[in-house]
């Protein structure tokens, strides 16, 4: 019945739906991936930095960017990890099976890197500087998961 030290809780699950406008730059970027399996960056005319993902303004120069450049598809692994703990994965709607590899990939021609999954989950086989290449989905939808993961080439 009633205990002085019984602390109650009120559980409430918030079911959130959302619809994000991709904007002109992401739309163009994802359409190229979906239709042509091409990955595009955008270059600042002033400082020559090539950004991935593409975006309208250079953060350093504050200038508008209109030069679209194909980058990759191969790149270099510039950071990596293997995740061992279970974590709720919103894109799966559940827990992603562990272990899984993830890392930062600098595609050839780009100055920034891309955060994505790796096809390798054994730490002993991962090193900064390894070459990687994207593995695309057969049926692409026009979003970042059109790249399933990056295969590590050694």
């Amino acid at each position, binding site marked *: 019945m009633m205990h002085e030290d019984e*602390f109650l809780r009120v559980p409430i699950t918030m079911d959130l739906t959302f619809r994000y406008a991709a904007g002109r730059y992401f739309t163009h970027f994802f359409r190229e991936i979906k239709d042509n399996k091409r990955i595009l960056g955008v270059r600042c005319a002033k400082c020559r930095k090539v*950004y991935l993902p593409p975006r309208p303004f250079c953060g350093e120069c504050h200038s508008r960017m209109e030069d679209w450049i194909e980058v990759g598809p191969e790149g270099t692994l510039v950071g990596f*990890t*293997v*995740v061992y703990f279970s974590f*709720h994965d919103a894109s799966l709607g559940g827990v992603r099976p562990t272990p899984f590899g993830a890392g930062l990939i600098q595609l050839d021609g780009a100055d920034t890197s891309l*955060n*994505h999954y790796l096809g390798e989950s054994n730490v002993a086989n991962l090193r900064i500087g390894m070459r990687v290449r994207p593995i695309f989905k057969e049926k692409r939808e026009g979003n970042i998961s059109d790249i399933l993961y990056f295969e590590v080439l050694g």
Partner: protein
Amino acid sequence: MGRSVAIVGTGQTVHRSRRDDVSMMELVREAATSALADAEMRASDIDAVILANMELFEGRALPEMWCAMGAGALYKHTLKIATGGTSGTSGAIAGFHHVASGLFDTAMVIGFEKQSDGQTTAGMALTDPMWDRHVASAAIGNFAVSISQYLAARDVDERHSAMVAVKARRNACNNPCAHLQMPDLTVEDVLASPYLAYPIHRLEMCPTTDGACAVIFACEGKAEKLCSRPAWVRAAVTRHDLPYLGDLKDRLLTMRTLRDAARKAYEIVGIREPIKELDVAEIYEPVTYAELAWYECLGFCKEGDAWRLIEDGLTQMDGVLPVNPSGGVLSTNPIGASGTIRTAEAALQIHGKGGRRQVPDVNLALVTGYGVYSWSDVMILSSSKG
């Protein structure tokens, strides 16, 4: 810089993984009343209230509305600040600005987080839905990736990281408010704890905590009457960077926001050799490797020498520059409060109220805040107005 402002009182809750005995608002009140008691002030003496909280984590929009009552903020100028991990320091800097402006004589800043009410799933919504969100590895995974870059560039081995963890949890034993207090923790224990995400062992990562912390700012003229040894704010600098994880080359190592904020803060105060001139540092270190990388970013040592600082004990309680006598974020991490706790802990060192964690003769203290990928806040507190 505006007029001079000092911290005249601080208060904290007992920080625990679950504070089931209080609602969020009651948690805020616990910290607020503790700070008011410390400064011997009443709620009516406070002109402005700043609340710092990452409302996303508890799914409670407008915590400033819900917690105004607990903060003694009814009918007062009240603002909420939500800037990720830097919420607590951004809040402190906002409190300082309010008083420095001359528009308010006193301000109370309360950082808080009722983490146990929340869900880490919600934290996923911090990332861009188009780009970073799909990699479900959270802050831990992101740190791990950045750490791999740090390890490739530096002569640090995992023992150095474990030493940072041991320092933090042992220091925490001198802090009655701290969440994780582990007097017997050893390097071997840390390295034996399971990997969360390579190379981070569980005991190298910060906990999630319920807690709140309040800090009271007062203008010159009032501060001297309220506090026998006010902690004057001599510098307060904030820096942000580009939005995607992949934009930040060698994030931990470079941490250009922290380097630039620290450089600017040192320049304002006239500090040339931080490790010699600072008496204590409370830095926001979410993971052990970050503390090591940021020793270099903060200019405590030459590039590449961070491992020496921890190995030679220079940042221990009896070292030349004690880092995180409170136990740091590694011991206590209510996200919205963590930055305010750094501020409070640095201030109370100057106040001489550190108890068993008091560093002798503190005149100059450093505070840092860190958030999301690469946001940095730096404050310098001093026993002299300058």
